[in-house]
């Protein structure tokens, strides 16, 4: 074989074999997958959401936050397993490769309050003290006079600028609109595989008195509170003045009738007035993701913490209210 021909045989062969493999393993499957039909209820993005998505990608949010839920027990906190039809309008894809922060697949459902999102972007530590997310103050303006039609972000005093109002820029508004649009659509007929956890509920109910005669799983109640409630109501139960109501000394939590307290946890709330303060933020419903025993644990934790002495509740009461007030 002459030397030049030998060169073309080796390198041409290596190239041709590679192109063949790439076609089989990447390009042809990708052509097929690009035609995946959107799942039920999955809608194209609005222009505002598209803009928000660009802010998201341009500032590298995707390096710390994934947008895919795996069919693993540990991922259940983020929603149902992601389905192929969820990604039909997700180009460029933002599935991500690292979870330095939590997955955002359902952030619009879990943290539906735009006020929370703005406070959190302006200074994450104002609502999540242990957060290591950078602040995104560059997405806000500080103004002396509040422009007509604008609402100032109600920051806790410790995190607010010395004077002036904090107002989100159009970019921040687009980003928050995009984040709030991140919600998984239910798949008709999909039932989450049964978990072993509910079996533990009866033992929790008969657990020894934790504090002040409250018969509930105190450790579980605290963990569930921190995972689901503390982002707004804070680990101290004090809430964020003007943004999220306190649970400490809250009449509904201290009341002998647990109805309002449990209904709020089950079905969410918005625009409520507590102690003369109107809270515009939205509270998400927890009926879909928490069991009766879990909600009872959380409620009892809230009713027995921070100096609260509300009457204990049982899982059975939660079940009654869940069934009754649909």
């Amino acid at each position, binding site marked *: 074989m002459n*030397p*030049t021909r*030998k*060169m073309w045989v*080796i*390198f041409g062969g*290596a*190239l041709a*074999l*590679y192109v063949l*493999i*790439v076609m089989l*393993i*990447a*390009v042809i499957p*990708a*052509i*097929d*997958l*690009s035609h*995946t039909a959107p799942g039920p209820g999955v809608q194209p993005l609005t222009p505002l959401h598209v803009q928000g998505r660009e802010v998201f*990608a*341009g*500032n*590298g*949010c*995707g*390096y*710390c936050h994934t947008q895919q839920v*795996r069919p693993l*027990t*540990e991922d259940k*906190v983020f929603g149902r*397993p992601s*389905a*192929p039809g969820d*990604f*039909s*309008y997700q180009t*460029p*894809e*933002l*599935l*991500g*490769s*690292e979870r330095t*922060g939590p997955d955002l697949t359902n952030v619009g459902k879990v943290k539906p309050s735009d006020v929370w999102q703005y406070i959190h972007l302006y200074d*994450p530590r104002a609502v*999540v003290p*242990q*957060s*290591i*997310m*950078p*602040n*995104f*103050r*560059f997405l806000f303006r500080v103004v002396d006079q509040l422009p007509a039609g604008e609402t100032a972000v109600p920051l806790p005093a410790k995190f607010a600028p010395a004077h002036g109002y904090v107002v989100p820029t159009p970019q921040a508004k687009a980003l928050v609109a995009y984040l709030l649009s991140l919600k998984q659509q239910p798949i008709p007929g999909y039932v989450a595989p049964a978990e072993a956890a509910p079996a533990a509920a009866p033992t929790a109910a008969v657990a020894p008195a934790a504090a002040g005669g409250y018969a509930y799983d105190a450790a579980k109640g605290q963990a569930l509170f*921190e*995972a689901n409630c503390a982002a707004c109501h804070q680990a101290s139960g004090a809430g964020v003045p003007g943004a999220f109501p306190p649970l400490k000394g809250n009449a509904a939590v201290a009341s002998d009738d647990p109805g309002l307290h449990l209904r709020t946890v089950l079905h969410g709330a918005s625009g409520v007035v507590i102690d003369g303060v109107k809270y515009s933020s939205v509270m998400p419903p927890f009926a879909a993701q928490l069991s009766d025993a879990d909600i009872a644990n959380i409620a009892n934790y809230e009713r027995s913490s921070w100096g609260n002495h509300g009457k204990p509740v049982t899982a059975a009461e939660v079940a009654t209210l869940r069934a009754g007030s649909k």
Partner: protein
Amino acid sequence: MAAAVQGAGIADRDATQEQTSEQDDRALAAVFKAYTISATCWLLFGTAVGLLLAFKFGAPDFWAEKYLTFGRLRPIHTNSVFYGFASIGLVGTAFYVTARSCGTRLYSTRLAWLGLWLFNIAALTGTIALDLGYNWGDLEYREWPWPIRLVLLAALLVTVWNLLATIARRASHDIYLSNWYIIGGFLWTCVICLVAILPWYQQGLGQVAISGYFMHNAVGMWFTPLALGLFYYAIPKVLNRPIYSYALGVLAFWTNLVFYPMLGGHHFLFSPLPWWLQTTAIICSVGMLVPVLGGSANFLLTMRGRYHGRIESYPLAFLFIGVLCYLVGSTQGTVEALRSLQAVWHFTSFTVGHSHLTMYGFVSFAVWGAIYALLPLATGKNPGRLGVATHFWLALVGMSIYVIALSIGGTLQGLDWVRGVPFIQSVAEMAPYYLWRGVGGILMFLSHLVFAWNVWRMTAGKPGNAPSPIMEPEGAAA
């Protein structure tokens, strides 16, 4: 086998079968020098950014302004060490290896300069675009806007044309193994760039499939073959003895080509990608043990009996660590791809540790080893032994701290999720490991400053004044 025996001698032979003029040698040395200096600048920039990022894990409000925010600097770090430092460093050395192992002059010095400009324009405009917030979907290693990635493709095409034309001028009938890996790497990477840019099959989930493919092919079909190509030349050269087995090198070449392209799907295990694609990726990840074990064994057996040489010769020490990290890092990659372990490690900092073990321990050490072994031969100027030793130990200790800290921390992070503790607890518990990552990072960055000094001495310093990196042949060991 005749070809194997003949080929094995080429690395030794090129010095005796010199067919190049002094002017050609000077031109080749100038190209090698310029690429090395350019790579060194990108190394300093890219790892300074990396160090700042490591610091931000402990001080998130530090320099949080728009152009210095974590999410913009993070891709700047990865892309500048990928396409600035490692790529340009490998390409410069590849020019030297190809020309020398073919016993001929470089086909075109002008094309080499053009390539250098194109690589730098791509890396520079890419950095600026990312800092301005033009990030194409946070898709790892292809964040640059597509016109910039076309410039990178042009750089690759210009360079591979130059290298192929050089090989066509070679003195011997055989093509030395290094050139198989180098040319293979270039040709495959041109395909990778093209596949990543074309839009027709990249909608939604289709793009996820391409992301998985791209992410790992850009690593395994570009950096791996080029670094291995340097090993096949530099290790026999420094030891002054032929490679242990030419045939084993050929086997590793073809098996790497068959298994590596298919394993990208393992970045998306448990994702909505088709299950068969994920399983194929896992099987090929296991198949990678063949080229990895074959290649590593070949290099280690070439070094057999001359282990004391690793202490005498720091270029060899760099190459030795590069081989070890290739072996350990790649095997770790196979293990990580298994579903049961992926369930714990995926999305955690363990993966970041893995990518540094491979891109730093394997690829960067290979680049440094090859530069320390070959650049003095091209320029006639040597770095001081103390300088090279300082670089070696700072880099090795720094990387070890970095990788060990993130491997332990990442495992705990994954176990926290499995145990179902509140997410924020997994963030808080990483703090000490993020701190140790920073400590390792400081040592690594200091080693790069020393490297820059050594490069200065090898390019602008005084000629001679130190022993050649090439060891004396040892009769008993042959």
